[in-house]
């Protein structure tokens, strides 16, 4: 069912996703706030992250079948080719597979802001990898 068309999707947005975005934005410098826009039957979140030295422009898509299907996050700022980076500079965060056992995304516990925090951690790893050549976290199982 579509996120923006079904009653279930709308209630999820109004009761869970929007309140956590508003809490995230509260008191934050406007440069780093999450901005929302409709994209088809889903939503596009635009924001910036600064894990250490650099500012990265980011985009997270909540597709129409979100939250069953995980959010897709990509970095708009050009990056060096590195591990854990998929086509279109999409971060490899949850895409281990489509089955319940293989996917790391949990729609009963995670929100879109959790995905943004995961992206922040990914970027922190990227900056360390950029300096040392070593990805500081273990491979996903």
């Amino acid at each position, binding site marked *: 069912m579509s996120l923006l068309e079904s009653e279930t999707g709308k209630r999820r947005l109004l009761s869970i996703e929007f309140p956590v975005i508003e809490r995230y934005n509260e008191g934050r410098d*406007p440069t780093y706030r999450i*901005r929302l826009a409709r994209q088809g039957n889903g939503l596009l979140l635009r924001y910036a992250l600064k894990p250490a030295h650099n500012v990265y422009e980011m985009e997270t898509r909540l597709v129409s079948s979100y939250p069953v299907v995980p959010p897709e996050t990509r970095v708009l700022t050009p990056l060096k080719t590195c591990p854990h980076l998929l086509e279109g500079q999409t971060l490899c965060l949850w895409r281990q597979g489509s089955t*319940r056992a293989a*996917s790391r995304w949990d729609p009963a516990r995670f929100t879109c802001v959790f995905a943004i925090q995961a992206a922040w951690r990914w970027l922190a790893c990227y900056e360390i990898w950029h300096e040392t050549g070593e990805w500081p976290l273990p491979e996903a199982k």
Partner: protein
Amino acid sequence: MAHLFQVGVGSGGMPVLDMICRDASIHRVTIVEPDVYKPHNVERHLFALWGVGHSKADLARRWLLERRPDLEVCVLPWDLTDPGRQSAFHEAIEDADLGVCAADNEKAKYHFDSLMRQHSRPWTLGEVLSGGIGGFVHCFVPSGPCYGCVASFLKRTVPVDNSPAPDYSAPGGPVWETTIPASKASIEAIASLHALLSLDLLAGREPSFTTLLWTLARVPGVFEEPFRPYRFRVARAADCLICQARPTPSSLEELDVALDQALARLGNA
């Protein structure tokens, strides 16, 4: 006299439907299945070779009526998540006594769960693991955990997959995923358990567990012993983002207004 609402009559769903409908307590069945029977289905399916090219839902209807001419069978040959067909699904579920989910994708399972909770109907779900190494049968009741609670619990506590991690040295490369089909024997073993638990639930005998995992093979690192049952009583999670009620506008009109206002506010954050 009971009405069964079943989604999915593929290789796993059809034997469940057949076994449940042999029970005299069933007088009406609604089948939701959009797929067509294809040549590669024949190896693991109850339907004959001549059925290739026909709708699976129509073949299921014919199968049932050849054995139970007294049965009332309604076919809804649509995708459960099709937004344009929801009123027909709601109408059927409102009249049903039990839901049986034999869908093979997460989107349909979550949507089935949502429909069943909206109508406060009990339901069951069967899942055969890749390669036929075992399977799950889950039983859901209106006051119990939702599919999200159960899936989240199993994801954290019951590993059933030891497939290798993706090859990170080749960014953008294919993501490895198990595609080993299960044998008909393993599918039927799990389907039998699924049918038994469904009939129990229909008869008002709620099992003492939410989830039954039945191993069918020894898989080092996953299942150390074949033919072993594991029962899990999963509690409804107090912080579940799927089933725990949170305040939102009651009417659909108010919901749309609130959504537009929130999008305008957050679009200009």
